[in-house]
């Protein structure tokens, strides 16, 4: 049976707050509700196992960094560095998120309803059964998926408060050498990083997108059919080592 605990973060410094969480985890708590969170950094950082967190308020930097397994749901916006180098688990953000979401992410999933900042999903990587995934409901800033080495980025551009901006910023996927970026609708040519092109999706891609969208829509109470009504394009690396010849020509 799940052991539940509600913690009130008001006025508590992040170190003490995270100590309380860790002590409770050691004590067998598996379901947390965190109230009045505001600015506390590193929530669920480095935690291991099947633990869930419902977070009310705006968590501080690097939420869920290095974690392996926990499920986090943020009822508001999140700041920078969400899921930094996370290894496994699920992060659902019902608002928007800041810069460098999922930096060097190695596994697990991050679902964001709204817009995200710059450098999201940079240096994501995949290995054997590890396949990190980020789904963004809104629009993204520059350098989405820069240096990407593996995993899946899915950008919907639907739940944004920036109607006039392009779906993604400049330098999409620059230097990527693994993984795939799916974008709903079209990507303006000039926003895509050097050497890359937006290509049509095939049946295998469509199956991946459909499964992800269904899971994403269920977590965020959105209409999967509406999301899937439009077409998608994909951006994949043009070679395994795009800069392999940069310094030492083969």
């Amino acid at each position, binding site marked *: 049976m799940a052991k539940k605990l509600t913690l009130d973060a008001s006025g508590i410094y*992040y170190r003490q707050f995270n100590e309380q969480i860790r002590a409770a985890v050691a004590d067998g708590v598996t379901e947390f509700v965190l109230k009045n969170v*505001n*600015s506390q*950094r590193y929530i669920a950082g480095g935690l291991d196992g099947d633990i869930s967190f419902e977070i009310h*308020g*705006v*968590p*501080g*930097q690097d939420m869920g960094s290095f974690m392996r397994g926990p499920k986090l749901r943020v009822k508001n*916006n999140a*700041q*920078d560095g969400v899921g930094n180098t996370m290894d496994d688990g699920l992060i659902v953000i019902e608002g*928007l998120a*800041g*810069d460098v979401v999922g930096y060097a992410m190695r596994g697990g999933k991050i679902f964001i309803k709204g*817009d995200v*900042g*710059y450098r999201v999903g940079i240096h994501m990587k995949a290995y054997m059964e590890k396949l990190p995934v980020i789904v963004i409901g809104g629009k993204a*800033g*520059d*350098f989405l998926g820069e240096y990407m080495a593996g995993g899946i980025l899915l950008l919907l551009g639907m739940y944004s*408060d*920036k109607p006039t*901006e392009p779906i993604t*910023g*400049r330098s999409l996927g620059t230097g990527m050498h693994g993984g795939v970026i799916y974008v709903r609708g079209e990507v303006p040519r*000039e926003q895509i990083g050097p050497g890359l092109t937006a290509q049509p999706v095939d049946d295998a891609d469509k199956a991946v997108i459909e499964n992800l969208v269904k899971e994403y829509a269920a977590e965020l109470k959105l209409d999967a059919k509406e999301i899937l009504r439009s077409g998608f394009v994909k951006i994949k690396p043009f070679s395994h080592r795009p800069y392999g010849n940069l310094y030492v020509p083969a």
Partner: protein
Amino acid sequence: MKAPDRYYDFQKDISGCGVFGVISKKRNLIPGDMPIRSMACMHDRGNGLGGGFAAYGIYPDLADKYAFHLMCDTEAALESAEQVLKHYFTVHESHPIPTRKVVTIKNPPIVTRYFLTIKKDRPAEVRDLGEQDYVVNAVMHINHRIAGAFVFSSGKNMGAFKGVGFPEDIADFFRLDEYKAYIWTGHNRFPTNTPGWWGGAHPFTLLDWSIVHNGEISSYGINRRYLCEHDYLCTLMTDTEVVAYELDLLIRKHGLTKELACKVFAPPFWDEIARMPKQEKDVYTALRMVYGSAMLNGPFAILVADNTGLFGLNDRIKLRPLVVAEKDDMVFMSSEESAIREVQPELDRVWMPKAGEPVIVHLEA
């Protein structure tokens, strides 16, 4: 030279500066408590080597006088600076800036403020300068030539308060909880390249301009030389100083709008200019040609205030965070959303502005 024992075993301070700004477009006075609490919420973005605030609308009864804030190492330096002030200005009022003793604020300089007007009988060597150039000249004179004395605020109905310490401690020292203003900016410093000293804390100011900055102006050298050609002398050993003087040069002296000045600081990329319609292309090409030496290279999120409003700007590839939020007639700008929610839990809109696109807020007339 030898690395310290157990050099590998330390608790790393992960940090970056923090900035916060708030404006009431209707000029409702906001108590100092608000920016202080916001900055305290971002305590960990600094390391205690610099904190400061700028406040607008704090001297309504002396709003027609230039309010000079001076920091001096010694009584002798203060005396020399005062001589210079009397050389250029009529002194209407002067007194020590009210302070409290704060345990964490060590060896503060002597801080004094003066309310000044231009002398009727101006010294011959600066007789022909316009009024504001005259004031700028006096600021440069003290900062450059009077050892141990610095003017850290020189505008009307506004003031900067800064020093070495965490911002909440600097606020305590300067008793900022006793002030009310319609624009506040705050800064929490984590110095990386330059010394953490009193003059080097943010904000940097000149006339009504004030700026707080998170990041690094890598083009400091070229900007500094460019400013030198226009009689602005950098003396405060922090890169951000150049932005304060460039604002004065571009906007006040050259008549650029705030929008265009921002496009000098963070210009569109050449490939973006190439795709613009002809008229826009000509404007941005001209800006890059004329003001290449004023461009700010490097990572920055800056908040700039003057007596007409507040604006925020990121470098063009957004290497520093900036969040903007609105609530009724108030606009907030901050490194972190939580610092805004700390003082205003309910917000009408929250967003992260695009790199290089300024968010400019004007006070209502």
